[in-house]
């Protein structure tokens, strides 16, 4: 899936954010006209700019235009893009997707060994928020779910809450899912401030990788992180904030996984959801693969015990990024097809699998590193599972 393209910009000084349309009659002052093949007349209606594959355009007045864009096929009517002075066109919001995410900042106070989106130490907060401020009002009001990720979003400081308030105002019916390491909420005032946003559609996804501080701190490569996160979780609970615990499964988190499940039940019983997630082979992971890799087939026992313990205690539990052929059948009920559409792939042998429809598949980048045990279901499931046993 293409999310970025580039052309030659004319009359663009600061980054513009707007919806795209191929129909001149639909143009508004916050939308771009997409010009694919046929050269069209300069539109009569007010508009934000023109994005064109052509080399030239008629009647160019002082309007903002990007020319010579290699392709516009990836853009759907109503998608929202940012257009920079450098001619870069980023897709910010896709109307046909349930997985739209705002990147709050690329800065992070952790440095997880398996980070899929490694942090960058540059102050991008005001630049990115400048874009989001324009973006948020344009998002369709029927948007089902919107993610906020980083980096560590809370490093935006007060702007983080500003953004959440803006979202609540513009998108009162949208589920908001924030990925944060939760450390900032060890400061009571941060948790309190979040509660002031008062959005019961807001859920925080917070990772806990071990019940033992040193292992967690090592995995996230940050001293004191575990104690800060746990204290943060308790502060958030005190203000009735909705919380999801996220556990990435790898060689460092598996040995104490069942103990972690018990720790969550005993110390964090207020969480709404616990998600166990397969390792993504992207970002830092390839670099640290020797420290992290364990074939998912080899942790089924620990995963099963942890999942069933929590589920039996009445907690809502999910398994993400796993393939049905690697997962024992009793855990299928917890497996979710969660991988964003544009990141989702299947192995060549999966094409003959009878369970393909129900399977979450792989991250595209995990085609390079996956369980050795992926194989298609060719007969009915009962026969096959009894064959395995």
């Amino acid at each position, binding site marked *: 899936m293409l999310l970025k393209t580039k052309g030659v910009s004319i009359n663009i000084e600061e980054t513009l954010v707007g919806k795209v349309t191929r129909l001149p009659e639909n143009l508004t002052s916050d939308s771009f006209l997409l010009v694919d093949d046929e050269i069209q007349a300069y539109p009569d209606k007010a508009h934000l700019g023109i994005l064109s594959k052509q080399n030239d355009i008629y009647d160019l007045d002082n309007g903002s235009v990007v020319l010579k864009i290699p392709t516009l096929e990836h853009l759907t009517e109503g998608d929202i893009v940012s257009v920079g002075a450098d001619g870069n066109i980023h897709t910010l919001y896709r109307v046909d997707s349930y997985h739209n995410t705002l990147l709050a900042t690329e800065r992070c106070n952790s440095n997880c060994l398996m980070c899929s989106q490694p942090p960058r*130490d540059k102050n991008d907060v005001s630049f990115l928020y400048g874009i989001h401020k324009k973006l948020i009002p344009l998002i369709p009001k029927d948007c089902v779910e919107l993610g906020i990720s980083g980096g560590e979003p809370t490093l935006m400081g007060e702007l983080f809450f500003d953004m959440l308030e803006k979202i609540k105002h513009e998108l009162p019916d949208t589920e908001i899912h924030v990925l944060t390491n939760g450390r900032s909420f060890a400061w009571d005032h941060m948790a309190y401030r979040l509660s002031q946003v008062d959005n019961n559609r807001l859920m925080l996804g917070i990772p806990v990788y071990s*019940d033992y501080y*040193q292992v967690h701190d*090592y995995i996230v490569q940050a001293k004191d992180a575990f104690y800060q996160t*746990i204290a943060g979780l308790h502060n958030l609970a005190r203000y009735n904030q909705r919380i999801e615990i996220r556990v990435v499964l790898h060689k460092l988190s598996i040995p*104490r996984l069942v103990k972690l499940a018990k720790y969550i*039940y005993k110390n964090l019983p207020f969480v709404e959801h616990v998600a166990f997630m397969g390792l993504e082979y992207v970002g830092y992971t390839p670099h*640290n693969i020797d420290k992290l890799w364990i074939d998912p087939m080899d942790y089924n026992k620990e995963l099963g015990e942890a999942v069933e313990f929590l589920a039996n205690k009445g907690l809502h539990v999910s398994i993400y990024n796993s393939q049905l052929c690697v997962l024992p059948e009793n855990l299928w009920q917890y497996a979710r097809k969660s991988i964003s559409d544009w990141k989702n792939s299947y192995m060549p042998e999966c094409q003959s699998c009878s369970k393909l429809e129900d399977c979450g598949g792989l991250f595209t980048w995990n085609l390079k590193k996956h369980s050795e045990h992926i194989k298609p279901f060719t007969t009915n499931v009962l026969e096959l599972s009894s064959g395995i046993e």
Partner: protein
Amino acid sequence: MEKEKSTRKFKGLELYDRQVEKDYFLLPFRFHRLTPEKEIIVNEVGDYLILPNGTFEKIVKRQIFKDSDEELYGDLLSNFFISEEKVSPLIDVLATRYRTKKSFLDDFTSLHIFVVSLRCEHTCHYCQVSRVTQDKGKYDMSIEHINKGIDLMMRSPNSHVTMEFQGGEALLAFENIVYAVERTKELAKVFNKKVTYVICTNLAVITEEILLYCKENDILISSSLDGPAFIHNENRKRPGRNSYELAIKGIELSRSILGKSRVSALMTTTNLSLEHPKEIVDEYYRLGFKSIFLRPISPYGFAVKNERKNKYETEKFIAFYKTALHHIIDYNLKGEFFSEDYASIILKKILTPFPVGYVDLNSPAGAINNVIVFNYEGSVYATDESRMLAEMNDFSFKLGHLDTHSYEDIFYGERAAWIAEASTNENLPGCSECAFQSYCGADPVHNLSTQGDISGYRPTSSFCQKNMEIIRYLIELMESDKRIRTVFESWIQ
């Protein structure tokens, strides 16, 4: 880019070690020998670890090392047994968990027992209090006292109270129950209280008319069933020797009108029962109950007077309990759901981080904090057992009288303060250092009635003997057999 990478270079596990000079601090926890090979350590909020004998000593002597005992060290740290800092960084989490465990105290008295009549048509040999008589004036609670009891109940800080009608046979004074329920319904609106109503009855005199009133007012029926006919009728004497038949008929009628979940039964263990654990369990199972509560008889009233029949050894009860428990577990292993209530109460305390509000096994004790008794003649007692003790002319737990004492006199008076002092096992001799403290409770009424001292004396306490062994046994069972662990987990879901 190059510069960024250098500052984000990955570091090894050892760099995240916070321990200073291989030292650690002990958080409050207690220990107990579980089996000849194993010991248990339990922390302040009830989390436990089971370890080979001798481990406790090593922990205390600082002989557990991060590198050589990696897993155990991590377990001790993450389960709040030790800390690498003098004050644990998660001390607030521990405090929250402690508050949660004790939050059954938050709302104060919930259970209000009204002894509406002492009259009964049964003469159960273990019964402490009942009278066979027609004398309503002397043995029924007066309307005036019912009014005053309700007024006190409305003053409870608890927004959800339970009004329980007891006897004697409560239904012999059904017209007073109706009066009490109707008045309470009106006042509950004024005081914004949710009220759960319970009638305790032997079912002998229950009628369709009574049950229709119960249905209309959401009243629960709590009945008595001691086991199959030959046990029940022996224990629960009545003209015609038909107590069992009437109970069964009553259960069926009650279920048909109120629904199965609105009708419960309690059993009392006697010397005769002790010989028939399986038959009693089977009887409950056969009748479609989803659980049974294996209760020992209480050492009060006529019970103590009838020594030969009722004063059995605690050991015998424990043996009975274990046999019955295994029989119940067997049902579960065959795929049935059928639980034992006393075990469920204790298991909830052991396995969950949540409070358990069972009045007879709490610290602080349920007396006054969770339960109060308005006796038929207007006296107010701290617990149901307290009024039975009073029938033996020991009025230690009489808190006052509805005619002469105010809410403050009763709930915050000198008697209440005296009881409160012996109501926390955290500060009772022998309990304060007990590993099972957080799974157990304090029972000042039992202490005084059996040992003549409100604080009790643990080495010869039957309360202690019974609970120590049942708790130890439950832990041993679930630690040694995964299937039993799964059964136990299902009981507390």
